[in-house]
């Protein structure tokens, strides 16, 4: 197998990795905010439920969570799901897991906001939702960008875990190619791909951070 075939095979795997990456962020970033609110709820029972959720998501391996989401419907309810479910199991698993991490980042950011911002907003007549979305959240985002960047970079590498349920993302492809050819080149190439992917992610996050540095 020549290099260009190898690269195009890996490239196809990479597209799946990118899909997992993008869909996971689209689910987990908003969901994380909802979970953060649950975690900060006034009602003790609600707060505890979300606390337990976060604790489980952070306390067990993502690989195991993916398997539970994929095999769970069959073993628990006897449901046989279509072939395409593999991919969606990965998205659901990643989305639920990353939302828990993002929730804690949001919570940290929200709780770090000074009371005075809420009080000023209240005095000026802003409603609760307006206060959060106009005054608090934009400042929270600026504060949490470095922590979010960390998670997003980890996510790029974590997409490789999809191989445990045989979703043909880049790592799965690399593994298959490597055993077929009995050499290291597919792994090394995959490594370069992941690195470039993360390089783009890191650069983008840095740009966002810079864009938000117009105020202190």
């Amino acid at each position, binding site marked *: 197998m020549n290099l260009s075939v190898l690269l195009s095979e890996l490239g196809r795997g990479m597209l799946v990795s990118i899909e997992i990456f993008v869909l996971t962020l689209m689910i987990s970033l908003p969901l994380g905010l909802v979970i953060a609110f649950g975690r900060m709820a006034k009602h003790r029972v609600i707060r505890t439920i979300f606390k337990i959720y976060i604790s489980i998501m952070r306390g067990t391996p993502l690989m195991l969570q993916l398997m539970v989401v994929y095999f769970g419907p069959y073993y628990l309810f006897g449901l046989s799901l279509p072939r395409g479910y593999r991919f969606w199991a990965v998205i659901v698993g990643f989305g639920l897991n990353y939302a828990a991490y993002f929730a804690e980042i949001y919570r940290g950011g929200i709780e770090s906001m*000074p009371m*005075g*911002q809420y*009080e*000023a907003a*209240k*005095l*000026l*007549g*802003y409603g609760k939702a*307006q206060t959060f979305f*106009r*005054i608090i959240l*934009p*400042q929270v985002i*600026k504060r949490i960008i470095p922590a979010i960047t960390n998670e997003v970079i980890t996510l790029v590498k974590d997409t490789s875990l999809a191989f445990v349920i045989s979703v043909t993302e880049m790592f799965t492809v690399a593994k298959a190619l490597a055993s077929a050819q009995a050499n290291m080149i597919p792994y090394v190439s995959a490594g370069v791909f992941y690195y470039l992917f993360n390089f783009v992610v890191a650069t983008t996050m840095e740009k966002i951070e810079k864009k938000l540095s*117009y*105020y*202190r």
Partner: protein
Amino acid sequence: MILLEMKNIQKQFDDLQVIKDISLNVKEGEVVAIIGPSGSGKSTLLRCATLLENIDSGEISYLGERVDYEDHENLKKIHRYFGLVFQNFNLFPHFSVLKNVADPLIHVQKMNKVKAHDIAKQVLDKMGLKEKELAYPFQLSGGQQQRVSISRALALNPKILFFDEPTSALDPELTGEVLRVIKDLAKENMTMVIVTHEMLFAKEVADRIIFMDQGVIVEEGTPQEVFEETKQVRTKAFIRQVGQ
């Protein structure tokens, strides 16, 4: 006309009775300065008046309308009667100076953007901040920031403006510009209640001085009465102590 009426206010934090049965009226056009040692309850009184804290007992009325903490519409209406200038400004750091002042007009009062900006610019100009409209709060001195915060409160056209130690967070050389602005407002008959440590300023600007200690009003009257013809021992001691 009485704008604010506070009757038999009590406020407790845990076991500490911070406000013990205080009654206080503020008439239209009046400037009231509240003085007293730290921990006397003057800031808490102001926070109760501006509904940042709920009172334990007593009643508060603005323009004859009694505050009902349970009634959302009532609170919304009453909130429009007053503004508050905080000790540490509490400007929104992610908004430009102009946006800090105009944003509440646009998003709370639902004014159109052009009109809101006109009003904001007018107020900022009056506060001597015309050149700073596009700056962000972190680029301003403390005195300038406090003037933006006064502008922000004024733009909403409140009937009564509260100040919570407006110069306490400022370097000494910056207090003058803020005090001058407040004095100008007094000349325009703005109704104001000012908690302050600046005795000379209080004496000069206020129609009425209220001296508070340990959660009660110990003495009140004109500046002349409180500072020159002091009746209470505690007031005397305080005034002597702050070097008046």
